[in-house]
């Protein structure tokens, strides 16, 4: 039975191998890490890697960073590697704790706390003045700090505004109150046009509904524990309004997310698009660009405009989620000195001026004067003044990463009872923040 033995051995060894692969894939990066500060900067030359997230940073700024860095540090090179916003917290947790860490990373302002509190970034407290001091955006200095230490510098900020094209909205006046805003959404929607584009997973832009009605995501009790806020009567009012828009005045799929909104927008299927102000560059891209827009039709300069979401009272504005990024040097970077050189370039007046000219609110307050003088900038400025942040807990990033917010808003878009969805969501938020 020699043949049989060979078969048996094959069975045994394949199973061992298969199990081996299982074990590999299911192991977290459990290894005990070495001394976080061992890397240190060598002061010599090196090749540093900068991780920028998404397409928000304009190409002009990228070129400026690379050429300036390589000019000032002869012999060293700088490579920009673009990351995706989806799954960023997971990715950084593994990438920044490993031995092959990038040297300078951009991170969303609401995600920064997960890493500053874990000791993942180099302490920049001593360099605060050198990097810009009180000229840096205060809210973002706060999101990059933990226990009075400064780890992640502000990079840029952007406000969420409503973008529209007069090709679709015709002569509908810009709303001045929240109720007018809702009424416009209703009257602009039709079988082929979304009054407001609300993909189910897009909780970031949908938060305006909760906040405009006076609701909160979560509040901290006097004993330090967190209490979910979606079940409050104010928040429920907002969720009910949102559900009506999602189910009757919106064509976006209930389980899709907010990526590539320029596709339906350029197809003329969107009246109002709530998005960070830099979405205009995706819409006003040429038709034959790599990521096509509609510069010659709906996205033309005289048609494309924006307004800040109005609040309950005329002249006030609804709170929107403050968007933007921080930038930090990972503690495991092998070239911390060079990374710091690159960081100073990104916070230099010249670099921040490029960001401002492209409609991003610069990290340095003094450079805001370079923002283009148009409807987008005015809307951004108004929205930014009313912008809110996510709850200030280092564990908030875990709530975002778990996908529970996406799930809950998808359920709303499917027509589930807002009270039940809100109750379950509050329970999840409380168990994560207090856990």
């Amino acid at each position, binding site marked *: *039975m020699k043949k*049989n*033995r060979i*078969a*048996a051995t*094959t*069975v*045994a060894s*394949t*199973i*061992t191998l*298969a*199990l*081996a*692969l*299982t*074990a*590999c*894939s*299911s*192991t*977290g*990066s*459990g*290894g005990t*890490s*070495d*001394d*976080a500060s061992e890397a240190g900067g060598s002061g010599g030359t090196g090749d540093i890697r900068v991780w920028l997230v998404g397409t928000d940073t304009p190409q002009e700024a990228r070129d400026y960073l690379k050429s300036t860095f390589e000019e000032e540090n002869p012999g060293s090179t700088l490579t920009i590697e673009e990351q995706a916003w*989806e*799954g960023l*917290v*997971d990715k950084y*947790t*593994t990438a*920044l*704790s490993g031995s092959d860490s990038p040297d300078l990373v951009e991170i969303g302002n609401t995600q920064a706390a*997960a*890493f500053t*509190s*874990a*000791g*993942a970034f180099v302490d920049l407290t001593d360099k605060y003045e050198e990097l810009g001091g009180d000229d840096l955006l205060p809210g973002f200095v706060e999101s990059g700090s933990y226990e009075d230490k400064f780890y992640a510098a502000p990079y840029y900020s952007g406000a969420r505004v409503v973008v529209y094209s007069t090709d679709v909205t015709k002569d509908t006046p810009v709303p001045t109150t929240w109720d007018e805003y809702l009424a416009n959404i209703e009257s602009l929607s039709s079988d082929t046009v979304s009054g407001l584009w609300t993909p189910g997973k897009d909780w970031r832009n949908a938060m305006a509904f909760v906040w405009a009605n006076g609701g909160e995501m979560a509040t901290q009790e006097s004993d330090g524990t967190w209490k979910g806020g979606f079940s409050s009567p104010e928040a429920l009012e907002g969720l009910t309004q949102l559900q009506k828009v999602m189910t009757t005045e919106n*064509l976006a*799929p*209930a*389980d*899709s997310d907010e990526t590539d909104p320029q596709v*339906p927008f350029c197809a003329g299927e969107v009246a109002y698009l709530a998005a960070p102000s830099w979405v205009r560059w995706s819409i006003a891209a040429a038709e034959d660009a790599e990521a096509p827009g509609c510069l010659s039709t709906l996205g033309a300069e005289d048609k494309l405009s924006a307004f800040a979401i109005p609040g309950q009272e005329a002249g006030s504005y609804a709170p929107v989620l403050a968007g933007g990024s921080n930038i930090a040097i990972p*503690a495991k970077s092998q070239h911390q000195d060079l990374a710091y050189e690159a960081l100073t370039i990104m916070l230099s007046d010249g670099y921040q001026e490029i960001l401002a000219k492209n409609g991003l609110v610069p990290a340095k307050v003094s450079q805001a004067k370079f923002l283009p003088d148009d409807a987008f900038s005015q809307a951004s400025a108004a929205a930014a003044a009313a912008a809110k942040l996510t709850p200030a807990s280092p564990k908030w990033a*875990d709530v975002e*990463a*778990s*996908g*529970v917010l*996406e*799930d809950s808003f*998808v*359920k709303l878009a499917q027509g589930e009872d807002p009270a039940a969805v809100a109750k379950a969501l509050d329970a999840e938020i409380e168990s*994560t923040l207090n856990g």
Partner: protein
Amino acid sequence: MTVTAPAAPAAPPLAGAGPSRRARKPSPFPYALLAPALAILLVLVGWPLVNLVITSFQHFGREQAFGQPPTWAGVENYTTLLADGEFYAVLLRSFAFMVAAVATTMVLGTLLALLMMRLAKGWRTLVSVGLLLAWAIPALTSVMVWGWMFDTQYGVVNHVLTQLTGESWRGHSWLIHPLSFFLVLGLIVVWMGVPFIAFTMYAGLTQVPGEVLEAAQLDGAGARKRFFLIQVPYIRQIVIVLTVLSVIWDLRIFAQVYALQGIGGLYEKTSTLGVWIYQVGTASGDYGMSAAAAVVMVVIMLAVSFGYVRQTLKEED
């Protein structure tokens, strides 16, 4: 079964002279041949596995991943895990999906293998090339392609259904309902799994001696009887190996589920074991808990495969 301490080995016969001693002395050569493979397994599997088990007994969060010392948790992670209703829901979901996917893959793969036995050479080559192409596409790529086909707004599936039925399917979401999510996922997993099964089954079936089949046919055995009573017993070992492998592959699928969730669907209702462990650990930063879940998963996998290995070894004697 009780385990007794092994008796002290009998003292080797002293200086037994002559050829008999040389014959009894075991050669170290086989062990030398095994050594490199074992060393690699120990480093790449053994060490992470040991680490995994250690982590599962610790409070291990994101701070620990960045270098702070972890604290011991005893069996807390396991008790929390086994009291968590969500874990059982995920487990049940993974097993149900695995059973359906393995059954479909095996049946389709076997049918394709039987088809290839009967095809003329030209057609057989064509089928093989088609299978190879499906097999060669990376998992992530095929999820993206299938995801686009099932896209809610601009997908070709909804478009074709609209053309065929006359009703408007535009806006029908295939991924939002868990059952149809798993239908699409099953389609992707089976589509990628069938080629390997088909090729291996085909290779096995060609080894069944023709004269035995011919004799059976002369004795009046129909195609069905010939398949179940002659071909299947001949290739039993292969069927077992393929089933065990498919069970393991379909239980630990990760990339397909993770990528498909990014396209649509609810995380809460569609996560399988691997994705859930990832979400608890890497995404939410609770490594201790996810390690405990991973240990449970390894134990389940061992149990699944152990039965088959033992049975195979038993029948060899």
